[in-house]
């Protein structure tokens, strides 16, 4: 057991810190959270800077420890988060890197790294959420293209995306539902696509419904074999449940510090119950950070993608983060009802953490079945 970094890693950290100190003051002001085109421009501009400084592919090519350091330092410095580039950098990109052909990698990866192309994830459907394998969006082969018809939902960033990693059913007759699914890269400007934004409970339009009416997607846009898309997808999902939330743990520890300062200022710190509640939360976030380090150590040693250990992390993290905002509401009192406070909007956003990227119930199923070996159920 060793939590210290090698000289090389410390050097990486020092160089990154130096670069961040120089780069951050030059950033444009943060865009209005409701203005998606502005958010896209901001997020892509940041990715472009990272690219030019040589940090673009840190999510893929760097060692897991370097990646951890990168996420830790950028968050500590208050740098922008991946934002609209989440799917490109953390879902579709890694999938293409792992499963795509040389031409596909050359075609799609550099624009993601440069911050030119934004991707979205078209997996969920009205009838296929937790039970993703029941998806029904149909793709029929017609010459050198698939003709796709169906509906996707909860597609984050669909409004501003250039590409969509799309799961479609190519063989409805397959003996198992998991066979018969194919992974396609769909250009979002193809004819037949209608995007209808959905308003979240926070009032913003984070995600959308995507209607597909005979959209032609070239066969060369298929990653992996026809009907093998489920396996291809699982590569992506394990990325999603692995180290994707590292920066957010660092953010939570910072937020908790801010909350303690606010509590000392407004006198709620004198309430022992509340103070102790913040203490417990702090211990939890500290331990979550250690779990991240354990997962990263495992990934670094085995070279594999983070597996079920990510579910252990996500289960507690999403719960603790929601609890952080509940505690914040107790500190803020009446101000917690003011949408003009960041805390209030963040409290609302945090309600999605136990749903998106696999609900807590599904995560518990995964932990029980894959780690503890309890019987599989529906």
């Amino acid at each position: 057991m060793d939590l210290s970094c090698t000289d090389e890693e410390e050097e990486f950290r020092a160089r990154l810190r130096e670069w961040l100190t120089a780069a951050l003051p030059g950033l444009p002001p943060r865009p209005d959270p409701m203005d998606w085109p502005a958010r896209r421009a901001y997020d892509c501009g940041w990715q472009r800077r990272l690219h030019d400084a040589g940090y673009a592919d840190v999510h893929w090519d760097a060692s897991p420890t370097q990646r951890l350091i990168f996420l830790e330092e950028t968050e500590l410095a208050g740098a922008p988060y991946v934002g609209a580039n989440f799917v490109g950098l953390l879902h579709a990109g890694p999938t293409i890197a792992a499963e795509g052909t040389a031409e596909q990698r050359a075609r799609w990866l550099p624009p993601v790294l440069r911050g030119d192309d934004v991707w979205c994830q078209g997996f969920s459907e009205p009838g296929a959420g937790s039970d993703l394998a029941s998806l029904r969006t149909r793709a029929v082969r017609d010459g050198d293209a698939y003709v796709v018809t169906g509906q996707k939902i909860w597609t984050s960033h669909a409004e501003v995306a250039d590409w969509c990693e799309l799961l479609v059913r190519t063989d409805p007759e397959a003996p198992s539902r998991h066979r018969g699914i194919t992974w396609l890269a769909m250009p979002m400007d193809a004819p037949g696509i209608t995007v209808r934004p959905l308003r979240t409970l926070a009032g913003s339009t984070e995600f959308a419904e995507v209607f597909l009416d005979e959209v032609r997607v070239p066969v060369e846009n298929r990653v992996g074999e026809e009907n093998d898309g489920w396996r291809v997808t699982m590569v992506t999902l394990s990325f999603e449940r692995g180290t994707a939330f590292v920066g957010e743990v660092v953010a939570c520890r910072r937020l908790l510090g801010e909350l303690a300062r606010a509590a000392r200022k407004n006198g709620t710190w004198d309430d022992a119950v509340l103070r102790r509640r913040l203490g417990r939360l702090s211990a939890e976030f500290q331990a979550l950070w250690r779990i991240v380090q354990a997962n990263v150590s495992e990934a670094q040693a085995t070279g594999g993608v983070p597996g079920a250990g990510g579910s252990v992390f996500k289960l507690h993290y999403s719960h603790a983060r929601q609890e952080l905002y509940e505690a914040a509401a107790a500190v803020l009192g009446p101000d917690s009802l003011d949408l003009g406070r960041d805390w209030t909007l963040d409290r609302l956003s945090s309600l999605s953490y136990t749903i998106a990227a696999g609900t807590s119930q599904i995560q518990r199923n995964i932990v029980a079945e894959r780690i503890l070996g309890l019987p599989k159920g529906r």
Partner: protein
Amino acid sequence: MDFRLTEDQRALRGGVRDLLEGRFGREALRAAVDSGGALDRDLWRELGAAGFFALRLPEEEGGVGLGLPEAVLVFEEAGRVLLPGPLVATHMAAGSVPGAAEGAVVVTAVDEGLVPWLEQADVVLGDTTGAVPMRSVDPLTPLHRVPVPVSVPAPGEGEARLQAALLTAAEQVGSAGRTTETAVSYAREREQFGQVIGGFQAVKHLCAGMLVRTELARAAVRAASLTVDPVEIAGAKLLADEAATANARDCLQVHGGMGFTWEADVHLHLKRAWVRAGLRLPAARAEEAVAAGL
């Protein structure tokens, strides 16, 4: 950075597990319960000979020369099998009380208004004036109560006290891991409604929650053994207490009526977990300590 156990650490853990399972398996545990809380001096000397108490003394002084991270692994194993006795106090006294390192002398300490194993110990650290015996909730931890004047402020957490708290936390983690395993194996065997109960999601999710608590506490305890940071140690004790007590309760629930019996071991884990939670930096002070670090 590599937070995984090293080869040597895995070997150490395996060795201790073998030793304890051989020397203090289920039968020995139940025999100890039936004996009404006598301390097994032969076992104590064997632990001493195996280096349990001298683990962190330098080799020149006849110790094993290992550190807090290794001690934490060893105490996790002790917690797994519910090894009885003032293990932490004797381990902590190994450098200062003659005979403690070898397991020839049993050392206990006054802590949080309690003295475990007072009558069985050879050396008691702390003021036992006014000590009265209690009917201890844990059949394997005899307790005395000592008056704590309300006006005296809580003791500061010096380094030794913090280390003792961390080792206690490690025992809690071991217990939490064990009750998770016990619950899971029962859930895979017991059948109701024509299927094993581990196929019911309500049961599965209890078990998943147990694993999450254990892993969180384990990561916290192991990290604290490396950083020896007072705030991190307090947090680790807090989460380990939570893991051990809540897991024992969930384990009891998974066992149904069987869980409520004297015969099942679940209650032994729960009762010991309560005792450990009450000793060595209990929740209220641990939470305050972590909060003060914010």
